[in-house]
């Protein structure tokens, strides 16, 4: 490849960290006292060793029996100019470390990367926001922190304000904003960065449904503008929609790379991705509003088993478990279904007569929507779990692509496929009833 077309050239990037920093336990006053006296020197060595690596550490790390962990190991790849590359992998696979190295936040332990062009990285929205400053002031501050020039921010100021929709509160200190407003403002600034190379980490997972849609739209337009983008996400739908190519990292190494659909498929089938079920153990991190929060979403078959693959003819259960924290609201749990190309297939709402029009007491609810067999087309489908209250209308949560599942055609001939063996296009593939009338012609057939 001619290096004129290159945006990023990464060669043998490795990064190691030392983890052996556990505190010692002392069981008597005397031992803890002697340890206390000896501790300054020990502490000094300990904190010093954090970033000092000897050759033996590099070698010892290979066997895995030392206090060294390899966050990245010999990563090499090229990104062409204008390419949109997705990076996927389970937690701790090294995705964030890779982005941090490419954004120059932390240096690699060995290896190198050449970057051709101006880079902006967005590892978190709202970096450097100051609560005492007004929205207007924070736009300028955050913009320059993200690498824009003063004039650039000035030029885009109008667009940023308009995109964020916080115009009225522009001169209010940010500490009086709701968290939603803060995120919207932060994302709006970030969205107007115009570097040649953009490095993005999961920033789409913010805000309410409306705003998320806007962000995803913005990301889509950014990728169409021919900019080089590196995009890390757990959202497989977004990856396949936005990135033609992807790499899959696992334990600091590249497992697969290539076109994103096949990389995502391999990732999902590797068992690393718990795609068919997602659980929020901790109420703190769970998506939710004042009234309800989401606890779990999963895909199940008619026997109640969590499944990732489901036969095209079998009913599919979309289940959400949620906790109601405030009494007396009319709730509207609903699911959105999207396919791999991002088409919104349908919305389905909880119509269970036991709860319809009834105010719900506090407690945990598990609701399931059943999609009949022979309705969806083959392929991967992404489920968004959402919840709102009805009077007044308040969003509680909207978790885009919370879970996903694969509809598989078993080619048994009992489906809508019939005896056709080729590809079948279409957003859905319903099994419809066909009726065919016949009348016999009096003339003989043409020869």
């Amino acid at each position, binding site marked *: 490849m001619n*290096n*004129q077309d290159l945006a990023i*050239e990464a060669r043998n990037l490795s990064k190691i*960290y030392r983890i052996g920093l556990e505190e010692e336990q002392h069981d008597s006053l005397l031992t803890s006292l002697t340890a206390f006296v000896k501790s300054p020197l020990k502490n*000094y060595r300990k*904190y*010093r060793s*954090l*970033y000092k690596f000897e050759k033996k550490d590099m070698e010892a790390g290979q066997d895995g029996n030392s206090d060294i962990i390899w966050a990245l190991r010999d990563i090499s790849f090229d990104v062409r100019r204008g390419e949109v590359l997705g990076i996927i992998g389970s937690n701790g696979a090294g995705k964030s470390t890779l982005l*941090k*190295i*490419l*954004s*120059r*936040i*932390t*240096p*690699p*332990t*060995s*290896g*190198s*990367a*050449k*970057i*051709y*062009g*101006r*880079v902006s*990285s967005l*590892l*978190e929205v709202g*970096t*450097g926001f*100051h609560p*005492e*400053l007004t929205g207007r*002031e924070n736009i*300028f*501050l955050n913009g*320059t*922190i*993200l*690498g*824009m*020039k*003063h004039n*650039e921010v000035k030029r885009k100021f109008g*667009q940023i304000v308009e995109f964020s929709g916080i115009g009225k509160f522009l001169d209010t*200190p940010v500490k009086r904003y709701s968290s939603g407003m803060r995120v919207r403002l932060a994302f709006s600034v970030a969205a107007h960065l*115009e570097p*040649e190379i953009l490095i993005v980490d999961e920033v789409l997972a913010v805000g309410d449904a409306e705003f998320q849609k806007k962000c995803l739209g913005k990301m889509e337009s950014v990728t169409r*503008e021919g*900019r080089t983008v590196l995009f890390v996400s757990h959202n497989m739908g977004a990856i396949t929609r936005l990135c033609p190519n992807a790499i899959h990292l696992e334990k600091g190494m590249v497992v697969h790379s290539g076109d994103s659909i096949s990389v995502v498929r391999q990732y999902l089938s590797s068992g690393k991705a718990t795609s068919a079920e997602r659980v929020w153990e901790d109420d703190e991190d769970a998506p939710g509003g004042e009234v309800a929060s989401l606890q779990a979403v999963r895909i199940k078959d008619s026997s109640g088993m969590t499944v990732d693959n489901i036969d095209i003819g079998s009913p599919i259960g979309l289940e959400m478990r949620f906790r109601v924290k405030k009494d007396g609201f009319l709730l509207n749990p609903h699911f959105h279904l999207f396919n791999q190309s991002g088409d919104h297939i349908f919305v389905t709402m909880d119509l269970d007569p036991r709860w319809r029009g009834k105010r719900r007491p506090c407690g945990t609810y598990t609701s399931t929507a059943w999609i009949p067999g022979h309705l969806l087309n083959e392929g991967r489908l992404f489920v968004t779990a959402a919840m709102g209250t009805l009077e007044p209308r308040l969003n509680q949560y909207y978790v885009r692509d919370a879970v996903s599942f694969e509809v598989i055609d078993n080619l048994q001939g009992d489906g809508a496929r019939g005896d056709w063996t080729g590809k079948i296009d279409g957003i859905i593939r319903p099994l419809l009833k066909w009726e065919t009338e016949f009348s016999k012609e009096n003339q003989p057939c043409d020869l």
Partner: protein
Amino acid sequence: MTFLIPNMMQEVAEKKNEPSIVIKPKSGWSLPDFKELKEYRDLFYFLVWRDIKVLYAQTILGMAWAVLLPTIQIIIFTIVFGKVARIPTEGIPYVLFATVAIIPWTYMSQAMSQSSMSLVQNQSILGKIYFPRLIFPITPVLSKLVDFSISVVLVLAVMIYYRVAPSINILFFPVLVIYMMAIAAGTGMSLSALAIRFRDVKHALPFVIRMLMYTAPIVYSAASIPEKYRLLYSFNPLVGVIEGYRSCLLGLPFKWEFILPGMVTTIVLLFVGMMYFQKMERTFVDVI
């Protein structure tokens, strides 16, 4: 929507085959990349501006604090050291003697301590975005100049009260401002890089700064130091700054034997600070 400013496009075209950034492990000693720092001058401006803006947010007295605190300190020192202890001041009224020293000292102590803690305080930004880290310790050195400028009013007031007319010596004033900024910057760069690794700095710093005050001729006169210790004494750059301000503002002859050795120390401090900071810079994020 426009996405590339024209001159940037040109720059990119010229350097097409040259990587704009090469990322690789770094070790050894080097000086900061001043060209890169210049690129980030807008950010410098906004961080300094943020510091100033935020400092007196939600206060009743606002910028009056910059005058009020040194005033109280001057009053206390005048009572304790001037009236009670009767420290000799070479015939200068004690209020005048103390004021010209306390104002620059207030700047230096605040700039030094803020600069030293700058990395620890900004660690959330440190791990999320790249820009030359040197901006952090330098920002307080600049933003504290605002307080300094305001409190200079106090010096002027006292000078008017005692009818001290500025002499030609006042031309030396800008040199002293740069001198004291260099001390704060040198200390701040070294200590901020140290503080991010060893938080001991945070505990020791307030004490050390309080002690430093007594190493400089702020409440007493440098002339009271025995002759044979004077050279050693004046390698403390604080001595030079304070003596310099006194001569500059009160129109007394400059005592170069107190001023010059400290300048040597300051230049060394500045270079050591920059190089140590530069050496440690790339490991900051890994040791937060």
